[in-house]
């Protein structure tokens, strides 16, 4: 040991397979691990949604092999209503926690945030590794519930008490399955707390020279604001889950009120409040919507200028909008509870900030539209998903106008209108953000290009398909179609069944279109065309290094940043765009 280690390295490149690919401390490997986990979860969630749509369209349909997976949940391969609810609960839990939180935030954030600020790694690489593996354990615990007793819980991803808190007496799936759910989510919270702490510290402390906050790419801003939201939101959900676990296993009564009579049995609970769970859950749950979508705002605001070849209309305004949305997201949780039995006066108070959130959201949409104006848009697959993002976000945002008003929520609450709303504004917008990001950064992550033709096919089928699936759900909701129903036995719902079948068939197509994406991802990883360092002629720091970047991101170089993150369309014949690291002498305005 004669030569001392260079002081700039937090840790040397690992040699062993385990340190390199499994228990890696490298943020890039951890980011890919998160992405892989999200891929597995999204595939599971997609299959579950197919099963649900089969059942909703054709009640008596026998689904081959389903009886093998769960003999009680699908005797004779026909799904029972309880198993439908279990699949629905697992679909939502997988998608919201393990896809919409992990992919846009943990996966892309982990991979790109340190590079985009010019750091060699996250501030706490060991925490970072723990964050992923803790999340992985949470995923395994959740999936285990498919294989215990009565199967997965059926209380929905919101797990309202007392259905979730009184145990197996509440029905099939509410025994071990529901306990596993609560344990899984509690573990998940710990993983995300470690992750967001890391993101915040890295953003604030490890920026390279010249990378002022104002010069940070908007995608980094998105992950940064998200991590602040996540830190506070998961800090509320964690104790809520712990209390729920105690209610279920230690006989406490935090969420179960006194005098509950289930199946003629008076339960030995006293003094708990079912509404307390709702307050705690939605204090997390509403910000969670923004945890899913804010990285999308950031990604779109970074990807769109790169393909439009011009600056975003006002990046300061975009940052302001993201911060104010993050702030407001903590003041609106009560809009999920207008008809929950809380004081009706509070509905008026929660309604106003909810409506006010539409102002920054509208500003952002206008800024994106203004960016498209006069652009020279290069319509790659990534660009298509970016403009598609704007469209689905507009559609989803506008239905929020209805639900934010208590007087309309009395009619539309818990109908398919809500299902349409949150799928557009959260699920689809976030997914489109993930797709735009994937097509954009895949060359950087793997050093190979994704197939553009397949990417465009993927876009067109997905874009048209999701409108066929989710637009009609608005109509169902207006007709009073209640959500979370395993069958439509009510007289007034019978005429809506043909529309449900149309939705189901569209959903099969959209799902199938995702297989193109999976294939493209897999094929391009091994056989895609070699990617150059900067295939999109983009300006941020990740494009100043090799594809894929070396272990310490910049090969020992210490980058100095002289320019803003989106110097496109610079008024010069020789300089169409200016990298952030370009010499100071180059004038950009």
């Amino acid at each position, binding site marked *: 040991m004669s030569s001392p280690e260079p002081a700039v390295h937090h840790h040397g490149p690992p040699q062993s397979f385990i340190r390199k690919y499994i228990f890696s401390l490298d943020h890039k490997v951890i980011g890919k691990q998160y992405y892989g986990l999200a891929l597995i979860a999204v595939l599971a969630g997609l299959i579950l949604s197919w099963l649900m749509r089969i059942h909703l369209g054709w*009640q*008596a349909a*026998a689904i081959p092999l389903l009886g093998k997976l769960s003999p*009680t949940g699908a*005797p*004779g391969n*026909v*799904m*029972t*209503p*309880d*198993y439908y609810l279990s699949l629905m609960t697992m679909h939502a839990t997988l998608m919201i926690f393990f896809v919409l939180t992990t992919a846009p935030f943990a996966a892309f954030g982990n991979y790109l945030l340190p590079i985009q600020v010019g750091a060699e790694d996250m501030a706490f690489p060991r925490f970072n590794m723990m964050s992923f593996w803790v999340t992985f354990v949470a995923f395994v615990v959740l999936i285990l519930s498919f294989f215990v007793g*009565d199967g997965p819980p059926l209380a929905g991803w919101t797990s309202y008490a007392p259905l979730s808190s009184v145990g197996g007496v509440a*029905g*099939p799936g509410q025994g071990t399955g529901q306990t596993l759910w609560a344990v899984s989510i509690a573990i998940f919270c710990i993983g995300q707390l470690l992750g967001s702490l890391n993101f915040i510290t890295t953003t604030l402390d490890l920026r390279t020279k010249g990378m002022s906050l104002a010069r940070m790419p908007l995608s980094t801003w998105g992950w940064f604001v998200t991590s602040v939201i996540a830190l506070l939101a998961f800090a509320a959900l964690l104790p809520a889950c712990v209390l729920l676990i105690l209610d279920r296993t230690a006989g406490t009564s935090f969420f179960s009120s006194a005098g509950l009579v289930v*199946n*003629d049995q008076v339960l030995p609970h006293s003094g708990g409040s079912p509404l307390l769970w709702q307050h705690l859950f939605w204090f997390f749950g509403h910000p969670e919507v923004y945890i899913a979508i804010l990285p999308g705002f950031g990604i779109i605001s970074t990807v769109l200028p790169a393909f439009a070849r011009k600056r975003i209309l006002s990046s300061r305004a975009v940052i302001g909008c993201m911060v104010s949305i993050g702030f407001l997201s903590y003041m609106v949780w009560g809009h999920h509870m207008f008809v929950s039995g809380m004081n009706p006066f509070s509905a008026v108070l929660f309604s106003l900030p909810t409506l006010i959130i539409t102002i920054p959201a509208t500003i952002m949409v206008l800024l994106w539209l203004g960016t498209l104006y006069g652009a020279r848009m290069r319509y790659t697959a990534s660009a298509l998903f970016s403009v598609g993002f704007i469209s689905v976000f507009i559609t989803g945002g506008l239905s929020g106008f209805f639900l934010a008003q208590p007087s309309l929520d009395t009619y539309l609450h818990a109908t398919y209108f809500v299902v349409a709303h949150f799928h557009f504004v959260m699920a689809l917008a976030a997914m489109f953000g993930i797709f735009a990001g994937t097509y954009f950064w895949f060359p950087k992550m793997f050093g190979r290009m994704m197939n553009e033709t397949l990417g465009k096919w993927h876009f067109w089928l997905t874009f048209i398909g999701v409108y066929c699936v989710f637009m009609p759900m608005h109509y169902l909701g207006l007709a009073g179609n209640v959500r979370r129903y395993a*069958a439509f*036995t009510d*007289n007034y719902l019978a005429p809506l069944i043909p529309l449900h079948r149309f939705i189901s068939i569209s959903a099969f197509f959209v799902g199938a279109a995702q297989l193109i994406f999976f294939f493209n991802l897999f094929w391009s990883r091994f056989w895609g065309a070699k990617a150059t360092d900067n295939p999109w002629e983009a300006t941020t720091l990740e494009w100043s290094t090799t594809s894929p970047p070396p272990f310490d991101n910049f090969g020992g170089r210490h980058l100095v940043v002289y320019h803003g993150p989106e110097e496109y369309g610079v008024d010069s014949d020789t300089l169409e765009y200016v990298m952030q690291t370009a010499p100071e002498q180059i004038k950009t305005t």
Partner: protein
Amino acid sequence: MQARYALLPVLFALTVAVASVGPAPAGTIEGKVTYTGTPPKMKPIDMSKEPTCAKEHNPPLLSENVVTGPANALQYVVVYISAGEQSAQPPSEPVRFDQKGCMYVPHILPMHTNQPLQIYTDDPFTHNIHPMPKRNPEWNKSQPPGAPPIDTKWGTPEFIEVKCNIHPWMHGYFAVLNTSHYAVTDNEGNYSLKGLPPGKYTVTAWQEQYSTQSQEVTVGATGAASVNFVFKVTPYLY
């Protein structure tokens, strides 16, 4: 399957008391269960939630908690030997419980401990079977239309209330007994326990609202013993 079904009439003859005296070599206990007092009035069952069933049962059926017959007869009383018997192996032929037109058929199904129990559904919509035992393990399963029968058994003697979580009016009982000598009274309150070797027995009668009564009786080498029960009823069901 065929053999299984062929046994059903035999079982039926055993469980539902028949007045005819068979050529059994051993003794028989028979009798009548009646009530004193004013029985509660049974309410019509509102099946409007499941229109198929509401249409099928028009005028609506009455609930079956306390069913009376002519001359103060009390139906659906389980009469069985509760003591005095040699312990025997449970029969291997299964008993059958049906869900038909949103009702349980039969309303009360007696069986030996560990005797196979098969639960069928004949209705074109999903049922849920939720037995609520106190001493056996509780379970709760749904049966979509066309699902195979549920095969199960109960290990501990107990009167288990059965409900459907989807159709709340569906209400029945499994009478799990440590004997094969049992009967359920018919609409005239009659029952008969056949094939008993001579000896001293305790006969117990159980009614879902009015609990149990027991009497001791001695069965001779040939003859038939007679045991009657009288339940005191109240006009309030609750």
